[in-house]
């Protein structure tokens, strides 16, 4: 494993020429060799953050970018020693696969023989042996993606930056490449920043995930942190499917027309919203007293490995329930549901939101 660098963003904001503030001043510290995923909805500033780190944009006055503690804020990308993989790959159409991969080496005046060796090694690493002579437009999407990766790695960058490298691919291929990429990143041990808006990709790949919301960082944490312990409505909603139930607090419960859920904190009589995951809901036999909600099935979706139910429990939007695949459900059927107390989430400060 090579000696990887740490990255620090200090008070890095970004206001574009047209006055749009894409990024409010953020703080971010990335450890050497870590894979950090920037995750968030479209327009939240993921790409902008990545480009600040790359040296393709420069932060507003006061912002600083440090690589291994050293200030690189003013350095343009060609001097930062970063490798970058772009969303649409940005392969040079006027060069072959091999020439693309070797471009950075050529710029660095590495002799041709050495370049050829390196091309072969990299092609093998990304499972594209023998494609060095291909024209770019003769590659499939997945192959292009691999070439882009090989090209970025060829110059042995200190930092690897990837901007939605899998988004343009279809679902099946995306899953395969995600596994490959995961393995590769762990082997290389290079500091990596990965941008995506796909939460499952983020959780699968990231050592830590940075969830962003409208130019700000909403939460930084491991995938488990952000899934089990979201710090806000926004994060909870954005990661996975989340149910919300709204009712009136009182007597250690939140009550709504279809039942009540245990909840102790709020002032009695006030509105309260509780959240929980579909997979945390159990369908229980009615009349056993274990149920804490009852409702009518609005729709059923057979998803193969499970069946998803939308159940109206009279508490705002329908409750989504994932059940084992064996049971069979009818729209209109009434069922009893139970959510264990430990699975309930509540955000005091955001109730109004």
């Amino acid at each position, binding site marked *: 494993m090579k000696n990887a660098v740490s990255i620090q963003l200090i008070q890095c904001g970004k206001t574009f*020429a047209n006055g749009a503030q894409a990024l409010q001043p953020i703080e971010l510290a990335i450890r050497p060799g870590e894979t950090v995923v920037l995750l968030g909805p479209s327009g939240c500033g993921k790409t902008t953050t990545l480009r600040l780190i*790359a040296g*393709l944009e420069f932060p507003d006055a006061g912002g600083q970018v440090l690589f291994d503690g050293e200030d690189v804020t003013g350095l*343009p*990308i*060609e*001097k930062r020693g*970063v*490798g*970058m993989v*772009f969303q*649409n790959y*940005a*392969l*040079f*159409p*006027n060069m072959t696969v091999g020439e693309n991969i070797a*471009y*950075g080496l050529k*710029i*660095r005046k590495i002799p041709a023989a050495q370049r050829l060796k390196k091309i072969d090694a990299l092609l093998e690493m990304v499972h594209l042996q023998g494609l060095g002579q291909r024209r770019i*437009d003769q590659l499939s999407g997945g192959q292009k993606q691999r070439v882009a990766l090989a*090209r*970025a790695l*060829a*110059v042995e960058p200190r930092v690897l*930056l990837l901007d939605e490298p899998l988004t343009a691919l279809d679902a099946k291929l995306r899953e395969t490449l995600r596994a490959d990429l995961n393995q590769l990143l762990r082997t290389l041990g290079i500091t990596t920043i990965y941008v995506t808006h796909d939460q499952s990709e983020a959780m699968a790949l990231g050592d830590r995930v940075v969830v962003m919301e409208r130019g700000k960082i909403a939460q930084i944490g491991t995938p488990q942190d952000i899934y089990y312990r979201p710090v806000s409505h926004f994060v909870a909603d954005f990661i996975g499917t989340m149910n919300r139930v709204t009712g009136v607090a009182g007597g250690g419960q939140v009550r709504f027309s279809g039942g009540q859920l245990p909840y102790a904190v709020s002032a009695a009589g006030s509105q309260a919203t509780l959240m929980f995951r579909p997979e945390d809901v159990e369908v229980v036999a009615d009349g056993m007293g274990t149920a804490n909600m009852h409702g009518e099935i609005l729709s059923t979706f057979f998803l193969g490995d499970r069946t998803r139910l939308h159940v109206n429990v009279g508490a705002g939007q329908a409750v989504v329930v994932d059940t084992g695949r064996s049971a069979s459900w009818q729209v209109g059927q009434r069922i009893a549901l139970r959510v264990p107390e430990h699975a309930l989430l509540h955000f005091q400060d955001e109730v109004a939101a």
Partner: protein
Amino acid sequence: MHKSFRFYVQLGLTLLVCAFLIIPIILSMLAGITDNFFIGWSSGFTTRWIVQVWDTYQVTIWRSIAIALACLVVTTLVGVPLAYMLARHKGGNSRLARAIEELLMMPVAVPGLATALALIMAYGQYREFRSSLLFILVGHVMFTLPFMVRPVLAVMQSAQLPVLEEAAASLGAGPLQRFFGIVIPNVFSGILAGALMVVTLSIGEFNITWMLHTPLTMTLPVGLADSYASMRLEVGSAYTLIFFLMIIPLLIAMQWVTHTTRSRVRL
């Protein structure tokens, strides 16, 4: 399914329009090798008129080719960087760039007569310049420059140049390495399309040249106009035939380039 009435009306109209555009070309080429067009093809065919045109006007042909090539060199050297600026300044959204684009089209919008008059008024007093081919070249460059800039600009805009350049930069390439290593090769098809257009237009330019030319700088189209006015129809036709033989291969090449460009530009 039977083809509708509408189909046949459109087909008929299309054939008529094609005939309108193509038949005169063919007729004039035939007239150029007809012994006596007044009598008709029964008078037989001859290369006499072509030989006569070649003898009389050969020099205008070489001159036009020379000017067209010079024009190509200048518009390429000057137009490609210009297009680059238009494509990239302020992310390609600058008002200045749009204004320049607009300005560049002016010599095409304004009648050639006016451009020529203006050049004569402004620079006519420099005798050496006025009576040299440079004077014509200047007029041609002004007129053809946008035809180099526009296709190059179009390719630059569609070729995701900013991303490609960023990719090159991320691999350590500096501005000049990017311009020559990435930009130029990737807009080559645009340059080629522009080049063919420039050469074609320059060879055929009349409106400006007609006023700018002096007896020593007469070009092919000016000669054509002469021959139309003062020579037999057959001579004018033969001259036109020669013009077509020069220009049509260029036009076909242009078609081919735009065709291949369109399929290549998409990244």
